[in-house]
């Protein structure tokens, strides 16, 4: 992986809680989808049927900022691992 790209991704993850947690809490993060759903009275049942301990980029027992950063690294690691596995498989085929 190019060093510059990796450093950019690490920097994005480290600063991400400023936008994804802190500012989002201060101003009340609200997407257009939430606005539309409220108008129809649609109910988000994600928490009721949740299957993952990393729900909404949190890590159980950790503060939301740290959990958000760790979740970011976990997500990127999984994507890189999938890519690496695919590359290995294709390399073997070739």
């Amino acid at each position, binding site marked *: *992986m*190019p060093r510059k*790209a990796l450093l*950019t*991704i690490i920097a*994005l*993850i480290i*600063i*991400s809680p400023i*936008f*994804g947690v802190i*500012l*989002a809490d*201060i*101003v*009340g*993060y*609200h*997407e*257009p*989808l939430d*606005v*539309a*759903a409220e*108008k*129809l009275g*649609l*109910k*988000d*049942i*994600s928490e009721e*049927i*949740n*299957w*993952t301990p*990393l*729900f*909404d*980029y949190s890590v159980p027992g950790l503060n939301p900022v740290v959990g*958000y950063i760790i*979740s*970011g690294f*976990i*997500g*990127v690691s*999984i*994507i*890189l691992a*999938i*890519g*690496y596995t*695919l*590359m290995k498989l*294709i*390399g073997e085929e*070739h």
Partner: protein
Amino acid sequence: MHIPDGFLDPLWSIATYGVTIAYFASILKILKKTFSPEKVSLLTVLAAGIFAAQMLNWPLPGGTSLHFVGGALAGIMLGPVYGSLVLALVVTVQCLIFHDGGITALGANLLNMAIVDVIIGYVVYRAIVKAMGLSNKSRFIGGLLGGWLGITLAGITCGIEIGFSPQFPYGATITVPVMGSWHALLGVIEGVITGLIIVYVASKNPEIILADKVKKH
């Protein structure tokens, strides 16, 4: 943009899964022919970057917020086939690992972000670059309009999906204008970021921007 569990009518859930599976099945042939370690490497780096960028929400005081989606960027950089795969990887990891976007809505979320946004971004960029000739100016305008229209149409598609339901006969008349107008407004940010990244990549590695080439995938 990520539809959670509970928002979609079961019929829409099945229909959107059907369309998405059909689309990815249809591009499988192209993927099999063109898959290479270099392509996978680019795809993976871009997916990791978009995943990280999507974690940066833009909360706007007193208003509606949005985060970067990156579908148009992926479409412009790698073409519609590999661009769709990039977003599919991102959206599926977000859903399965972090429950960001519902499992009942994964088909719809892939349709909006990995198909509509990607294809529209690519098509608009190609049209602009073709009309204006290849330059940094046309790349920026192509990225801007591709990113903006991609996310606006993805938002409208999302509005249709959550609005059409037997429970709410006229739901779409409410959700489509809300999703369309907000995404048309906030999508300008997506467009500007897309345009800037494309110009930056063009200054470093212009050969990796697939939409600058005539070949399609």
